[in-house]
């Protein structure tokens, strides 16, 4: 299971980086969405991957028996999913707004903050 997931994570990262290298904001957003999922899977793979024994402490014991699934990565992923989802939502709105206001989704033409023809600083006193 682990090698399979590792390859999948690698593919996700490759796709995400390829998309994020694009000039167009919407592709960058898609890249970020895939990146978030890649990281979640990576976190998942970094714990023990088992599907047989759920992490439940049986009656009479006060620790998990050996060979159970690891609950911690699942807690970590849950946090990471919530965060990455909310950030993606924010970024999508921001991108849409930028497209409306700046009239382009090409990052090389988004020069409102750093215009191309800025005046030179004073060269003499």
């Amino acid at each position, binding site marked *: 299971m682990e090698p399979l997931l590792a390859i999948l994570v690698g593919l996700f990262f490759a796709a995400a980086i390829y998309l994020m290298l694009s000039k167009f904001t919407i592709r960058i957003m898609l890249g970020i969405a895939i990146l978030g999922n890649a990281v979640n899977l990576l976190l998942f793979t970094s*714990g023990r991957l088992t599907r047989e024994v759920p992490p439940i402490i049986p009656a009479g014991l006060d620790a998990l028996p050996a060979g159970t699934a690891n609950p*911690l990565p699942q807690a970590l992923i849950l946090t990471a999913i919530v965060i990455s989802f909310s950030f993606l939502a924010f970024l999508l709105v921001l991108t849409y707004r930028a497209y409306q206001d700046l009239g382009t989704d090409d990052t090389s033409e988004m020069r409102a903050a750093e215009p191309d023809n800025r005046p030179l600083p004073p060269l003499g006193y």
Partner: protein
Amino acid sequence: MAAATSTIDLSAALVTAPVPIGHWFAILPVAHCITLGAVLLMLRAHLRLQAWLAISGLAMLALIDAALLAKVAAEGPLTMVMGRWLPPFGIAFTVDLFGALMAFTSALVALAAGIYALADIGESGRRYGFFPLLMLLMAGVTGAFLTGDVFNLYVWFEVLLISSFGLIILGSERQQIDGALKYAVLNLIATTLFLIGVGILYAVFGTLNMADIAARSRDLRATAPLMTLASLFLLAFAMKAAAFPVNFWLPASYHTPRIVVSALFAGLLTKVGIYALIRVVVMLLPVERQELSPLIALAAAATILVGALGALAENDIRRLFGYVVISGIGNMLAGVALGSPGGGISGAVFYALHSMVLMTALYLAAGEIARRGGGFLLSGLGGLYRQSGGFTALSLVLFLAACGLPPFSGFWPKVILVKASLDSGAWWLAAVILVGGFLTTIAFGRLFLLAYWRPAPTAAMPSAAVWRTGLPLAALTALIVGFGILPERLLALSQAAAAGLADPQAYLHSVFPGGAQ
């Protein structure tokens, strides 16, 4: 795959007893910020009340942080574990001297910015939620400084990131949207890189508690890919801190928001990146830091020079100050590269504390320059000296401190760093630090010449000075002068903080009172 069996007695961690009252102190600043943020959000219809409550809350935060700092300085690191699930299971908040110092300084800076915001943030900005977002930003920043758990550090990074998104687009101008998009995307990618590092860290160590990691990294060095981990963390935090190859988002975005937001960001956010870098790379993975130090030194040198040269070429004073932030980051990275606890690290800690205060003060001064001179462009400014001698003197103090000239607080960390690099034989790094300081001096000299000494090109109509902008600026400048003239106390504190990072025995003992080994 959780690694190697632990040397810690895990059965003790399952014994539940209430958290001792004294331990709650470690989490009080963060709880205070979040609670106040929520209360302020509820008061969104009462804008005056909201502002004053926020400022008294920030003053309260500064008091709490001061008390925490005093306690930690007197008694050593303080740990609280959530729900008494003892480490390595529970999430721990461990406050050591380094974290407490950074938290206290950040609270002072936020208080100054909050007072300045009374004048700078208009009603629409307050309606938009400036003060609640400020409190949540402080929750994120303070949480990052105080936490003792790597994943928890990631969560605080996200808290401060989402609040900073809200702050940076306050006003929704075209320029701000453009700046915010670049800031948001690049910072999110940096934080995701950090999360990748956390995932691999967990796979290697089977724990996320910093003290546990610090204790175990020695045994795992032969088998685990710790070098990969250190490099990943280095890249992620360098991106957060705007170090050389990954710094271009900073000058693209920091000049777009309201001036008080720029001041907060310049003062706090890049320093959180440096803090995390020092915490993870210096304390948790010291051997890897040593291996990586030539690379860090190169990045530091490039950052210093890029920052100084960028500052020389700028016309907009806010962008100029952005480049000064970058060159300051270079100086701190140089300290990390040198790594000796008495020299490099303590220099970096001192520089970070000084830079938090100074950068905020510089941006607040930029707002004041714009108010008096009618704009941020050097080509249009002039005649400020004739307008107000007091403000000119105050600005000159800030400029000299930023250049690292005595007798102001920028001088001492540079002395430490130059001495440390000469001691370790890295003469070229000392030279770069000095040349960077020289170029910054020229950049500030040019700014002073053009904006202050030159006769005003157009007759600007300054509005009357108000205490809301004057008071925080004067207070921050007084801090800079004070720590320039009487640096011994801060010097001793930053050396103690650096010693605690280099040899985290006290930190470990605070998390595992029973002994980790």
